[in-house]
């Protein structure tokens, strides 16, 4: 009799906990900030070990590299795992996640944040965009315990504690699925005109961050252990003299590690880049700049030997994905009144 009651209570407690957990997960999902969530979530929509290239890094790469344009022009299957304010330490864990889920042949790392001295970039918001959208697995947990002081870890382990105040901002969009149309990239549809970069001596360098270089060293080691080719890139932006010096300094770092480094600041004319029409702001490419950068990047990747997967049975859906992407891009440009360059 007593045993039966205990069992009933135990069963009820388990059911209650299950119900609570389900509602808790639902509330977390509803309340979390969905801005830029697709940039990381898109990775998990791809079949395991199906990608050849993954882009990792800051908003420079997030706004600059369009995976489905690479597919259309070069047959390169890729995903953009960049995120706003993604510091090199966070990129290290993103590289781990890319290898865990996709083990791509090549990882393209945005070198821009190598100058940044801290573990995370300017407050929690940006780090949450990266970490919160990672799957619950080793890389995420290691990132939380490595990068954040113990009093902040709770907010990453239980994201509701960080986002619960969003009940005031809830909108119908919070019920919509996360948009992953661009396979991780984000598009900027506005223009700020700038002049040409101030000429800088190629030998002129500025120091990089020790913290960033420490984590960069870990990225290099990890990629070598896993047999993944690591490529450093600097996407075009309206770099100051000091920033050009930092990007020049990356060349020496790449050389020391024997890595490929493509600094597109040095190749702006060759890729048809126009600072008067291709920048969203001083630091980010707009859609037209990104299309030009993606084209140049694709050519370099193809030349490096990244395979053309067009026509492959495993990639049948990519043409449909591309059609959806182009449709979305043209419609979004129209709505924003953005003069999108002519697309083939």
């Amino acid at each position, binding site marked *: 009799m007593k045993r039966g009651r205990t069992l009933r209570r135990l069963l009820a407690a388990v059911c*209650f906990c299950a119900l609570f957990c389900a509602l808790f997960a639902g509330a977390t999902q509803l309340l979390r900030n969905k801005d830029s969530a697709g940039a990381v979530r898109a990775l998990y929509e791809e079949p395991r070990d199906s990608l050849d290239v993954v882009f990792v890094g800051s908003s420079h790469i997030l706004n600059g590299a369009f995976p489905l344009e690479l597919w259309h022009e070069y047959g390169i299957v890729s995903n953009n795992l960049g995120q706003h304010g993604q510091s090199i330490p966070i990129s290290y864990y993103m590289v781990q996640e890319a290898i865990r889920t996709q083990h791509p042949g090549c990882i393209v790392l945005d070198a821009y944040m190598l100058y940044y001295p801290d573990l995370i970039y300017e407050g929690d918001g940006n780090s949450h965009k990266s970490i919160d959208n990672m799957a619950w697995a080793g890389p995420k947990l290691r990132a939380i315990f490595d990068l954040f002081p113990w*009093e902040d870890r709770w907010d990453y382990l239980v994201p509701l*504690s*960080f986002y*619960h105040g969003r009940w005031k901002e809830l909108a119908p969009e919070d019920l919509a699925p996360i948009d992953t149309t661009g396979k991780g990239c984000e598009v900027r549809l506005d223009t700020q005109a700038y002049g040409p970069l101030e000429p800088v001596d190629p030998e002129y360098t500025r120091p990089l961050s020790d913290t960033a270089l420490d984590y960069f060293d870990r990225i290099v080691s990890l990629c070598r252990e896993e047999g993944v080719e690591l490529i450093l890139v600097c996407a075009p932006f309206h770099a100051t003299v000091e920033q050009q010096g930092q990007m020049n300094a990356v060349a020496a770092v790449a050389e020391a590690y024997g890595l490929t480094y493509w600094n597109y600041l040095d190749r702006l004319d060759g890729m048809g880049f126009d600072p008067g029409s291709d920048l969203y702001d001083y630091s980010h490419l707009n859609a037209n700049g990104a299309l030009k950068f993606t084209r140049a990047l694709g050519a370099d990747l193809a030349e490096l030997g990244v395979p053309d997967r067009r026509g492959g049975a495993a990639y049948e859906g990519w043409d449909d994905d591309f059609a959806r992407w182009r449709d979305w891009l043209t419609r979004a440009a129209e709505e924003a009144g953005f003069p999108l360059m002519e697309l083939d």
Partner: protein
Amino acid sequence: MLYNEGTCDSRRRGGNAGPGEDMVFNSPQFLLFFPAVTLLYFLVPRGWRMGWLLLASYFFYACAHVGYTVLLLCTTAVSFAAALLAGRRRDPLWRRGWTAAGIVSVLALLFFFKYFNFAAQSAAALLSWLGAAGEAPRLELVLPLGISFYTFQEVGYLADVCRGKVPAERNFLRYALFTAFFPKLVSGPIERADGLLAQMREGRDGWGLDVPFDFDRMRRGLLLMLWGLFLKLVLADRLALLVDTVFADYTAYNGLHLAVAAVCFSLQIYGDFGGYSAIAVGAAEVLGFRLTDNFRQPYLAVSVRDFWHRWHVSLSGWFRDYLYIPLGGSRRGKWRTRLNLMVTFLVSGLWHGASWNFVAWGGLHGLYQVAGDLLRPGRERACAALRIRREAPVWRAVRTLFTFALVTAAWVFFRADSAGQAAGFLARAVTCFTLDPDGLTGLGLDWKDLAVALAAVVTVFLADLLGRKGPVRDRVLALPLPARWAVYLLGLFAVLIFGIYGGDYDPSDFIYGREF
């Protein structure tokens, strides 16, 4: 919590309070600590339970400041020894002597840590007023967490032993647990030896160290803890945003804003301290101990005297038994009774904080009661002439509202930085009063937060109304399972979604930014 003197004081003075400031009831650390302690408590052999709880309690205290565990241990040892020595003596003189020695020792520590700077500055101000120059010495002290609470508990225990009301405890570990029991260590309730210590010694009415795990008791305790978290996180910490905004610069607001802020502080402090007490009582209940129910629908009181039978009950009882009655209570004539009341409430004010505004707050409550006593004959004659029945619901509601207004006005002295600021606040609330609601959403809470706060206030009010006829928990637990679960889930998600926590919120820093 607002009554958590130690933490607020350490913050104010920039003292190093250590990582454990986070081991407050509304911290994530406590969410890990409490289940772990409870699980092991019921898993270890019964003979080890006392040691385990004592260890857990000292760990809880050490998280706030390791050094002050030594102080806690010393004051525990002194009061234990004094009570033991007093208890062995039959000669009243010796009994009183040892008791006095114990009380003076523990109160000396309280005075040193809490009142030394206040006394020195007050003395210097007095001398300066009399024309004598002098600089008041100031010690950089961090007020030990909960010292006012455990000191008063020890004093009460010593007095009870001296009176022969309880025997002196012979087991030091048990007495140490009585003093340091973590659910009530930081902010009470202030327990008595014939209550908690008796439960720890031989068990009482199914409560104590030897009771087995009880599912129903755990459920009741957890429900009370959830209610406490609702009061604290949804009500008190939300209203604190408005209260802090207005009190930071009260001259920038009109009378309506000030009145709203004053009412909000009344509700905030109830949510804050009532919430803390509910968590404390609930946590103890899960472990099998019954603590004093510290709040009994205080804002439904129909007089200030009634209010003090419902607010911080364990402290009111302490002052009644160990100060008011020894002073003569109501046995020595009307004027002596009134004097005793004033003394008791002035000391109570001083206990709440080493500052003159707290003394003024206590004095105001004393004056309310003295005035109430003086006006009673006239009031009763007026009621009779107007044929007002004392127990008529409308008359009770009027009295309740009037009492709430009096208590709210007094709380302004409690919340203000000084008695002068409080007086200025109240004067401005009257002289600049307007019914224009413009700007109410600019007081630190937008309309959505105000709506949530209002919903929380209505919930608390209804719960208090229901609570007059018995514990609301009993009603909830008597509901059919789906309704019961709905209540649990509503409570949990109200706290999780509408609570003020997480992000940059620091439970101790946010609420303890004042000196008490």
